[in-house]
């Protein structure tokens, strides 16, 4: 019996251990449950819900007709939007649409039946007020506002049941020239923009985000929404050759003289990708073009001249190339394939003496190498494998990627050229932040934009390329990758015309752009100027491949064009924006100057809008007005799922509402008493207690 106390001792130790374990479990269980892990994605404060996806056909149907007249270096474009109310209620409709970012909208007509109302230019607030007043009084009104230089919004009030109202705007745009090739690009849809949450700092920022976003038509609604017809009258002043449209099938008709009439082969097209028309000049490209206009007592002139191509350089000095690739959700589908193919192509052209790095971003960012590495076969192979593995997903937080790309370890190294190449669609709303960073930290880097996809943000691309002293190339389709990338990389290694200066003998002239760009092979310098009286000669000088170069144009050779003054005003506005981004002028100064230009030249700017109103009411008193924002088609080649997994819409109801809403975050209280857990724990403890007592008792019973 000597072993008895031993056993009992062990038993007691065991039981107390068990008790301690049970107690510890209970305590820790409740601790864990009360302290949920912080959710890194959860933000406080204000949030913006996307405007979501429209799954039903809108009550207001829209058809657009675009008619462009190209004469020489400029295009006059008329856009007619027919709003047809298919419902039996009175409607107000708003439609977000893109225009070329260098276009100047100067005319608005609203057509109701036989009556035409001519639009007037007013300051943004005044125009808004006029519109709201007409709307409240039941009168028809049409309003054209600018959301971005390449993004406009038409709003139209009091369209009766079954009624159709036409809104017609006109704008002037320059023709793009590269070597002997010319192009006019007409964007047809605004790609869904990513609004970085940190930019939603106040009510004004939220209103701006509302302005640049629209609900998206669900793919199941098909491509029948918002059809567009396009007619281009091409009179370039020479016999045009090789007239093509890379993204749409066209029909070309010969007209009198050198003119051509271009229409869509299918009659109409869904508004889901940019339209581009290209043509070229026969033989040698003209070295310059010069146009002038007298407007309100001042002389305006536009000059386009191309520096001669300076034969290929024997040895391209070693380069540091930073590739930045966007793999956000908006790149899903064709775009990411094109971006990856472009990057792989560029990686294949690196030489061992070059250094390189890759930065990829969505709402997160990865910098492949800590710093740029020599392009040895091993490193290049590694980078290629990395590129092949990229998937498109998440938001478009481009700012950190830009900052990382511009961070230069050797800012004063003159032996190597530093080139940053962006592959993105630029579909974001914080253009201003991007431009501010680019302005302040460009250093010796040069920024080259490769716009990917069927509806890229050309405004951001062009402005970044200009400020970054690089170029902009668009790749709308995988099939263009090789040709366009080869052209871009050739341009990158060819000599650059730099240190450009312009002067006019005799008179004092304001030139735009204010900072002359660097010109890559074949690129023209487009100058706009105004003065009290323009005469004498314009001289442009600079260095080309290390040698001095200059060219002189006689102003008396200029031909007349009534587009020049407005193009000058528009270019001047771009300069004011650039000065604002560079913090050279205050916001208020820039706004005031832009407003003045808008009013003087009768053009729509961020500060001025066009408004047309009927003077008699048409909506009967008491009839309610229903507001609708027209949904936009998903740009061609975009992947709906990749976009909506992560950009904006998380919640089906928010999507169905089709309205962006301002929300206030709130923490929800703890709402579980957990009494069932208490009951269960109580029962468990009771069971354990009674169980061990029973065991102890049986043991005693046996001994006795």
């Amino acid at each position: 019996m000597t072993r008895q106390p031993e056993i009992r001792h062990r038993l007691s130790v065991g039981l107390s251990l068990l008790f301690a374990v049970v107690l510890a479990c209970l305590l820790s269980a409740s601790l864990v449950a009360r302290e949920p892990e912080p959710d890194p994605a959860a933000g406080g404060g204000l949030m913006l819900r996307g405007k979501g996806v429209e799954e039903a056909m809108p009550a207001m149907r829209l058809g657009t007709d675009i008619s462009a007249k190209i004469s020489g270096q400029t295009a006059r474009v008329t856009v007619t939007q027919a709003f047809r109310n298919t419902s039996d209620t009175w409607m107000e409709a708003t439609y977000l649409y893109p225009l070329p970012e260098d276009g100047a909208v100067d005319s608005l007509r609203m057509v109701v039946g036989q009556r035409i109302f001519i639009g007037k230019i007013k300051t943004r607030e005044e125009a808004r007020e006029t519109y709201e007043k007409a709307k409240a009084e039941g009168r028809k009104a049409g309003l054209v506002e600018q959301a971005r230089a390449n993004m406009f919004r038409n709003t139209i009030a009091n369209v009766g049941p079954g009624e159709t109202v036409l809104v017609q705007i006109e704008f002037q745009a320059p023709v793009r020239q590269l070597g002997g090739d010319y192009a006019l690009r007409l964007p047809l849809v605004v790609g869904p923009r990513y609004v970085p949450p940190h930019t939603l700092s106040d009510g004004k920022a939220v209103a701006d985000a509302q302005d640049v976003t629209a609900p998206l038509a669900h793919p199941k609604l098909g491509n029948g929404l918002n059809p567009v017809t396009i007619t281009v009258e091409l009179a370039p002043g020479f016999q045009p050759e090789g007239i093509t449209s890379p993204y749409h099938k066209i029909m070309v008709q010969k007209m009198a003289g050198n003119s051509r009439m271009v229409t869509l082969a299918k009659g109409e097209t869904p508004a889901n990708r940019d339209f581009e028309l290209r043509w070229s000049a026969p033989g040698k490209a003209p070295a310059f073009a010069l146009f002038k206009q007298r407007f309100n007592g001042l002389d305006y002139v536009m000059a386009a001249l191309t520096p001669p191509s300076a034969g290929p350089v024997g040895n391209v000095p070693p380069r540091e190339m930073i590739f930045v690739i966007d793999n956000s959700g908006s790149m899903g589908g064709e775009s990411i394939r094109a971006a990856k193919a472009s990057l792989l192509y560029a990686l294949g052209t690196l030489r061992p003496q070059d250094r390189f790095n890759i930065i990829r971003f969505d709402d997160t960012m990865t910098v492949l190498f800590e710093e740029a590495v020599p392009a040895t076969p091993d490193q290049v192979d590694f980078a290629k494998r990395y590129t092949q593995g990229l998937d498109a997903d998440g938001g478009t937080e481009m700012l950190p990627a830009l900052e990382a790309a511009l961070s230069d370890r050797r800012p004063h190294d003159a032996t190597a050229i530093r080139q940053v190449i962006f592959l993105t669609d630029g579909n974001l709303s914080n253009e201003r932040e991007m431009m501010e960073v680019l302005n302040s930290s460009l250093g010796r880097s040069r920024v080259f934009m490769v716009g990917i996809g069927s509806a890229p943000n050309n405004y951001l691309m062009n402005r970044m390329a200009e400020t970054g002293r690089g170029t902009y190339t668009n790749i709308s389709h995988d099939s263009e990758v090789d040709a366009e990338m080869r052209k871009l990389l050739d341009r990158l290694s060819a000599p650059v015309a730099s240190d450009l200066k312009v002067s006019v003998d005799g008179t004092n002239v304001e030139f735009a752009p204010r900072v002359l760009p660097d010109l890559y092979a074949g690129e023209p310098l487009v100058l706009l100027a105004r003065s009290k009286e323009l005469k004498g000669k314009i001289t442009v000088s600079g260095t080309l491949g290390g040698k001095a170069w200059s060219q002189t144009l006689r102003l008396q050779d200029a031909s007349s064009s009534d587009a020049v003054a407005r193009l000058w005003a528009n270019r001047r506005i771009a300069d004011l924006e650039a000065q604002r981004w560079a913090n050279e002028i205050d916001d208020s100064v820039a706004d005031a100057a832009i407003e003045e230009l808008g009013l003087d030249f009768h053009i729509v700017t961020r500060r001025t809008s066009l408004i047309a109103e009927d003077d008699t009411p048409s909506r009967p008193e008491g009839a309610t007005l229903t507001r609708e924002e027209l949904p936009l088609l998903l740009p061609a080649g975009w992947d709906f799922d990749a976009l909506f997994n992560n950009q904006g819409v998380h919640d089906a109801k928010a999507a169905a509402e089709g309205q962006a809403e301002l929300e206030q975050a709130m923490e929800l209280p703890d709402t579980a008493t957990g009494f069932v857990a208490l009951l269960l724990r109580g029962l468990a403890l009771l069971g354990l207690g009674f169980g061990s007592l029973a065991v102890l008792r049986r043991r005693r019973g046996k001994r006795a």
Partner: protein
Amino acid sequence: MSALALRLPQVGGRASWRALLPRLFALLLVVAGLVQFGQGLWIPVKAQVAQVLLDRSFSASMDAGAPLKPWPWADMQPVARITATRLDVSDVVLSGASGQAMAFGPTEVLDNGSVRILAAHRDTHFRFMRDLRVGDELVLQGINGVKHRYRVTHFQTVRWDGFAYPVSPDRELLALATCYPFDAVEPGPLRRVAWAELVE
């Protein structure tokens, strides 16, 4: 329990302590179990009983036209009565979102004129939320007697710190919030929110 306690071994010294220890632990377990069980039982009982008292004070408040305290030492007042018509459930809603008040009834955590948010425990007053469906009618009656009718439009599952309400909705909204999942035993980070729109 007394019967168990009487059977202590009759041996003295160290040995007697050794004999005593296991039994003492077993007894402690039993006591702890009883306490927990009692606490657990007290919660739903308190929730039920409080509603009876609150019901009376809500009626009295309606008569008086001003909120009255349900019992003298209460630090909250009845402000409304929420009814889920189809489920035939009705609770008196209290002001203030303290855990204290929530033991007795649903509490109003927000009323900004256009959005009202009520919160209650998933295992007591808002247990009915697991049976709530889109289209159900919710009636909120204030102490002024006016009944507001809402229709459930959608549900939402969010983290406790990931919730947001619209600042200026087109129609007045009512949200009921409780913990989720409904049959979880321990409290967790997820919340279930039912959204309802005012019906004119």
